[in-house]
């Protein structure tokens, strides 16, 4: 069993559950008094403003904010108390889009996507259409959370799902600190079960990648070096194998923003992000080739903008009105949280970008 780390901001009725409050914090203080440049001005220095959407490559679907975990830094503010769940009707609208899209990747996320009651139906229908890369972002513990999920590794295998899972560290202490007591042991068990059906084995086409995001107010280190350390430690301690590690920067929104403020790390963290700004990363930032669809079918430039309730800057707002041509070339909606994707080697749901 795992022990929940905390409650969602929404459940706690925190001020930061209000996205306007978050956007206000990100625009005021050090960004208002000129101590640090606004993201818009920073990218303008290298003539990269406005950021424009390129042809779509990745369609990322958030099937709901419900989750069996309440991780300390969750940018979705997900948890067992979140009731926002995608309906089958919205899923059908997405399937209609998947049939015509030029995107090569379909990326399901949440919450714990597996908790959506129509998750399996959606995966079965979408895999019939044939997408080159079909990702499910699984938090791992869900596989061991309840008997009804025990067969998920086999289900993923049957539909050739690319499993991408969070793992903050190869040690129990750091993982449980961020994700809740017992999460590490359950995650290890789930990884072993995925390995047992063929996931993550070198040369296997059953892709298993891990996502590393820092457990505190610091940026991720070099992705390749971290991957090497993760692989050595997980193999040595648990005989676990996986393919790639994606190092992802925590963006200063939602529960991570709450943590930064409460721990008095907000300003230093923003300085770190701005100091590590890399214009090369702006070139390939994920919002330019990704579209994020919310549980209720609305469209966003990325999952972070979705959580900040910043919709796409386009006439097309909802999946039911989807038009890829109209969406291409749109101006990406930005704020200071975007520094999180342009620091160092850059950060995206697929890891580094520069």
């Amino acid at each position, binding site marked *: 069993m795992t022990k929940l780390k905390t409650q969602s901001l929404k459940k706690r009725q925190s001020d930061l559950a209000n996205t306007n409050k978050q956007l206000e914090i990100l625009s005021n203080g050090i960004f208002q008094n000129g101590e640090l440049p606004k993201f818009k001005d920073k990218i303008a220095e290298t003539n990269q403003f406005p950021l424009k959407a390129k042809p779509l490559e990745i369609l990322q679907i958030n099937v709901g904010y419900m989750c069996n975990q309440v991780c300390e830094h969750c940018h979705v503010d997900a948890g067992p108390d979140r009731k926002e769940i995608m309906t089958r009707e919205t899923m059908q609208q997405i399937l209609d889009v998947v049939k015509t899209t030029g995107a090569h990747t379909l990326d399901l996320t949440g919450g714990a996507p597996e908790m959506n009651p129509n998750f399996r139906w959606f995966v079965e229908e979408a895999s019939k259409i044939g997408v080159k890369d079909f990702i499910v972002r699984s938090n791992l513990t869900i596989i061991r959370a309840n008997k009804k999920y025990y067969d998920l590794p086999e289900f993923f295998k049957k539909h050739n799902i690319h499993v991408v899972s969070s793992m903050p560290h190869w040690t129990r202490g750091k993982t449980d600190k961020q994700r809740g007591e017992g999460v590490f042991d359950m995650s290890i068990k789930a990884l072993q079960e995925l390995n047992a059906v063929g996931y993550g084995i070198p040369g296997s086409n059953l892709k298993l990648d891990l996502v590393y995001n*820092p457990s505190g107010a610091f*940026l991720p*280190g*070099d992705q390749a*070096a*971290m991957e090497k*350390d993760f692989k050595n430690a997980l193999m040595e301690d648990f005989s676990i194998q996986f393919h790639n590690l994606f190092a992802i920067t925590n963006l200063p929104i939602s529960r991570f923003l709450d943590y930064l403020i409460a721990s008095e790390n907000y300003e230093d963290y923003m300085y770190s992000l701005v*100091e590590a700004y890399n214009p090369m990363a702006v070139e390939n930032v994920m919002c330019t080739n990704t579209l994020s669809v919310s549980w209720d079918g609305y469209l966003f430039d990325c999952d972070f903008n979705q959580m900040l309730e910043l919709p796409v800057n386009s006439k097309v707002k909802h999946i039911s009105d989807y038009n890829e041509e109209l969406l291409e070339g749109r101006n990406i909606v930005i704020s200071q949280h975007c520094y999180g994707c342009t620091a160092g080697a850059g950060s995206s749901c697929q890891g580094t970008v520069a």
Partner: protein
Amino acid sequence: MSKTYYDPADLRKFGKITEWSEELGNKFFEYYGKVFEEGALSAREKSLIALAVAHTEQCPYCIDAYTKDGLQRGVTKEEMMEAIHVGAAIKSGATLVHGVQMMNKVNKLDG
């Protein structure tokens, strides 16, 4: 407002030392950057050495910088503390080994 000799915010200004001596400052930062690159030692190993030295030098800026650097590299708190003990052992060893000099002197003067 209390004033102290060390202000954590000053660490961010480290790069400004080049403003008053550009050539030497640039050469220092070029050297510094090169030292910490992956070489015969990994960048991770170098980070731990830097952390230990930061403590023996008792440089608060360096301690902040290399604690954060270690976290970024996935270094655990147990590894950090062991590295500091290495520094502490060398520091105390360096003190105690001079005891031999004292013993030599005593033996010479009063032996």
